[in-house]
């Protein structure tokens, strides 16, 4: 039986209802909130600031450090033990690498920019929401970047290519693949590509094409979030 209708009634290339806002955490230098369906990501950026331990300092450029964390009762399954885990460490690393591609910290040697992403509510696609939120937060903090990075997951559920999978689709009782993708806006370069499950080569290409269109939609939202922050002030 093929997958003809999605579990939440969306079109195959339709994203979950998304929301983005910049400047939500007053103490941070830059911050953002991204909601995608039932997934919520808060990102806070601090810095550039002095980097310790000192052996991590790079005299040629500043570095980016990332933290990713799901809150204890954020998922639909069991309580998640707070603090670092293998999973969160790996996700923090891939977020860091995908953002690093566009950040230019050459003017801040030996310094660090810290990104903290926390998720109070999750329903699949957390690393994508985290990257999209972190990108807004970095821009909000005034960090020089060559381009924005937008991220969304694509995949295949029982032979049908779909965009922005929710947890029920990831857990669908058939062959499922889940492919988080992060892309730059102007050049459409891929800065994150991971996969869970299996997919044929042709369908993978189809999925990536879908991701290219989907990340554009995310980009529109990111742009709006950043511009709205200043529009509000102009009106007052």
């Amino acid at each position, binding site marked *: 039986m093929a997958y003809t209708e999605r579990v939440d009634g969306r079109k195959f290339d339709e994203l979950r209802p998304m929301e983005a806002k910049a400047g939500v955490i007053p103490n941070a*230098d*830059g911050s953002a909130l991204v909601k995608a369906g039932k997934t919520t990501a808060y990102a806070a950026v601090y*810095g*550039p*600031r*002095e*980097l310790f331990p000192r052996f991590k300092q790079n*005299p040629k450029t*500043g570095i980016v450090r990332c933290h990713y964390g799901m809150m204890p009762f954020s998922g639909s399954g069991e309580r998640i033990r707070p603090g670092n885990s293998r999973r969160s460490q790996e996700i923090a690393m891939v977020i860091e690498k995908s953002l690093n591609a*566009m950040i*230019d910290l050459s*003017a*801040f*040697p*030996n*310094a*660090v920019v810290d990104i903290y992403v926390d998720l109070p509510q999750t329903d699949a696609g957390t690393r994508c929401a985290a990257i999209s939120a972190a990108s807004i937060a970095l*821009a*909000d*903090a*005034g*960090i*020089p*970047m*060559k*381009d*924005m990075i937008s991220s969304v997951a694509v995949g295949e559920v029982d032979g049908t290519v779909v965009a922005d999978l929710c947890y029920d689709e990831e857990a669908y009782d058939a062959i499922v693949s889940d492919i988080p993708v992060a892309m*730059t*806006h*102007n050049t459409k370069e891929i800065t994150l590509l991971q996969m869970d499950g299996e997919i044929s080569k042709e369908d993978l290409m189809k999925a990536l094409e879908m991701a290219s269109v989907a990340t554009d939609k995310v980009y529109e939202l*990111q*742009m709006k979030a*950043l*511009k709205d922050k*200043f*529009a509000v*002030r*102009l009106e*007052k």
Partner: protein
Amino acid sequence: MSNILKKEREVVIPGETIAEGMDYLPGDNTYREGEKIFSKVLGLVGVTGRVMKITPLSGPYIPMTGDKIIAKVFDITMSGWRFETNTAYSAMMNVKDASSRFIKRDEDLSKILAIGEYAVVKITKVTSQNLIDLTMKEPGLHSISGGRLVKINSQKVPRIIGKQGSMISLIKEKTGCNITVGQNGIVWIKGESEKELLAEKAVKMIEARSHEEGLTEKMGKFLTGGEQ
């Protein structure tokens, strides 16, 4: 064909195309790739002649030679003081730059500036690695005692000062406080305690509403009648 794609003073985000064609040149916070000029930060578009630049709306303070800043002593070394500058980098001030009087070889440097004290200082040199040298020898530079310090975003400093210092002299006049604005976003206010509070409120308000036009007039009203 070359043309500018954005209006003057329009808000742009990183990666947005601001101009096409080789007739325009990339200025501050922009870069060229192929024929196009892109923005590198979140900010406002500015065009001066053929040069496109972006004035950042947020972001860290970047130390520049000649800037007057307010910094805090956090260490004393053999040859001088180390300061926190509200950036990712610390700054050095040599003994010879501290005072115009003669400082003896075995003098206790903490008698001149103790750890934890703030001072109004000027940046004399910044290296490519952002090592900062300071001086306190010029008129208007001194250590700070009393009053209160307010931290604001350094990108808002020009707004606090205003055109030819109009905003800052307005606050000074209305509150009777002494105010020194460091380019690194630290503001020192000293006066009667209640007036200090009013001046602090005014500074915070300017920071929050820096995008509005006619802000100097609004602040004038706020400071005289308490009306917002």
